[in-house]
């Protein structure tokens, strides 16, 4: 069911973004869907310590599996994560945990804000 997408690393910056080459297609898109809150490759932006999303990159695989299954079962109370964990299969949880545990922890960039230019709105 899962198709392995093994692409050999080549020279260039993109290589750094692709440290985990054994990932399946299914997992790479599912994991990327987490980026809205947890950042590209699980590296969350830090700006408001108390409520920053958890950086998943480089966390222990067993820890991620435990958290997600606890959110899924309701053993651990969540604000929003129970919605996501409940929609995943146990195999997907396992694959996601494996994927994020293999990501390199890096500091995410934020784009700088700008002054809105005088252009025509649509």
């Amino acid at each position, binding site marked *: *069911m*899962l*198709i392995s*997408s093994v*692409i050999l*690393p*080549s020279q*260039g*910056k*993109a*290589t750094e*973004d*692709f440290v985990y080459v054994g990932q*399946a*297609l*299914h997992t*790479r*898109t*599912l994991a*990327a*869907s*987490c*980026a*809205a*809150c*947890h*950042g*590209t490759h699980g590296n*969350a*932006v830090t*700006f*408001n310590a*108390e*409520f*920053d*999303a958890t950086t998943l990159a480089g966390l222990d695989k067993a820890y991620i599996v435990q958290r997600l299954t606890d959110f*899924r079962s309701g053993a651990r109370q969540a*604000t*929003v994560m129970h*919605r*996501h*964990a*409940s*929609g*995943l299969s146990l195999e*997907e949880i396992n694959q996601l945990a494996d994927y994020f545990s293999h990501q390199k922890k890096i500091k*995410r*960039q*934020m*784009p*700088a*804000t*700008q*002054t*809105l*230019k005088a*252009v*025509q*709105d*649509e």
Partner: protein
Amino acid sequence: MSSFNGFNRRDFIKSAAALGALSFAPYAGAMGKRSPIGRVVIIGGGYAGTSAAKYIRMWSMGGIEVVVIERSPQFVSCPLSNLVLGGSQQINDLTFGYDLLKKNHGIQWVQDSVIAIDTGARKVTMQRGDITYDRLIIAPGVDFIYDSMPQLQTTEAQKQIPHAWKAGWQTVYLRQQLESMPDGGVFVMTIPKAPYRCPPGPYERVCQVAHYLKNHKPNSKIIVLDANAEIVSKKGLFTKVWASTYTGMIDYRHDSAVVSVDVPTKTVSTEFEQVKADVLNVIPPQRAGKPAQMADLLESDYPWCEVDFLSYESEKIKNVHVIGDSVASGLPKSAHMATSQARVCASAVVELMQGRAPDPMPVFANTCYSFVDDKQAMHVANVYRYDAAKKIMVSAEGGGVSLVPSDKEGAYAKAWAHNIWSDILT
């Protein structure tokens, strides 16, 4: 007009550089040393288009050439833009450049408007030239339908009666009008029939305007004319907030589609009544964006684009993909959804262009927060899973909404915004 059609890649870059109108990442030239797998042209630099561009570059290891065509010089976020109306955010907090995205991923960028698409010749025509593609991704967002309100088509009319449904100057104008409105004035907002961009967005906007008026012009009223039979999203939560936090301020009228608008008097007519406003915000009905119309991708009886949900390739035209709000998905047209669709599309495009099959059962998430005042927010969140029998994305178990809005979710909503901006723009 210069034509890039038929030029090889290096010539295209040279022509572009000579024109001075197109910008390229610093190391794009060096990439020319090895032959790319092919060229993907992406129309639109919103949530969907930027995501597709970045992830195709990452997942192809730089092997696929990506050219984005976007007419705006800046990215302005629709998510959080209702807070500009409430006064807790400024438009410049939500405005960004594309520089880091281009530089970090070697994405070629053309700031121009698309004027024609020839899917037979695989060619996109812009005001300043043509470009050919191996695969085209169209991510244009929504287009407004002015059939019932032709008076609102002009820039001048939209300055007086802004839709503010694409964040930018109209958001600023609407805020300025609220600031100028006398205490005791009437703010009228109209909501089009679903589907439209951001299902809870209009109701969040009502909360934001109410928050501002409650604190600054407490004798003012809000009239909501909704073309739908009821509140489209987070109904229970919005109903409760309106009754408890904004008691007596909001007059909600369902089944009230706009039939005409009088611009000078700011009067809107429905089938049942005429309503005069001090500040009028008409959100017009919507359809798939103009580039999707140019490529003839809309259904004849439904103004959105049918796609294969494994690749987001159009059901009508090969090698053309549609992502984001223009897709006929039956799912919420949200920013997170646009990025989720974009990554499934990106992954499939990378595989298809190398002769491999895409993931046969994509799964992705959507989280959408709505702010009810300057601090508190509430979510609707779902995982969606491909149903191979129905060939659509369906809700997985466990989706739903917050029990109550909270400060904590307000902080999470801001974290969501920062992370999604970082993901798509760097």
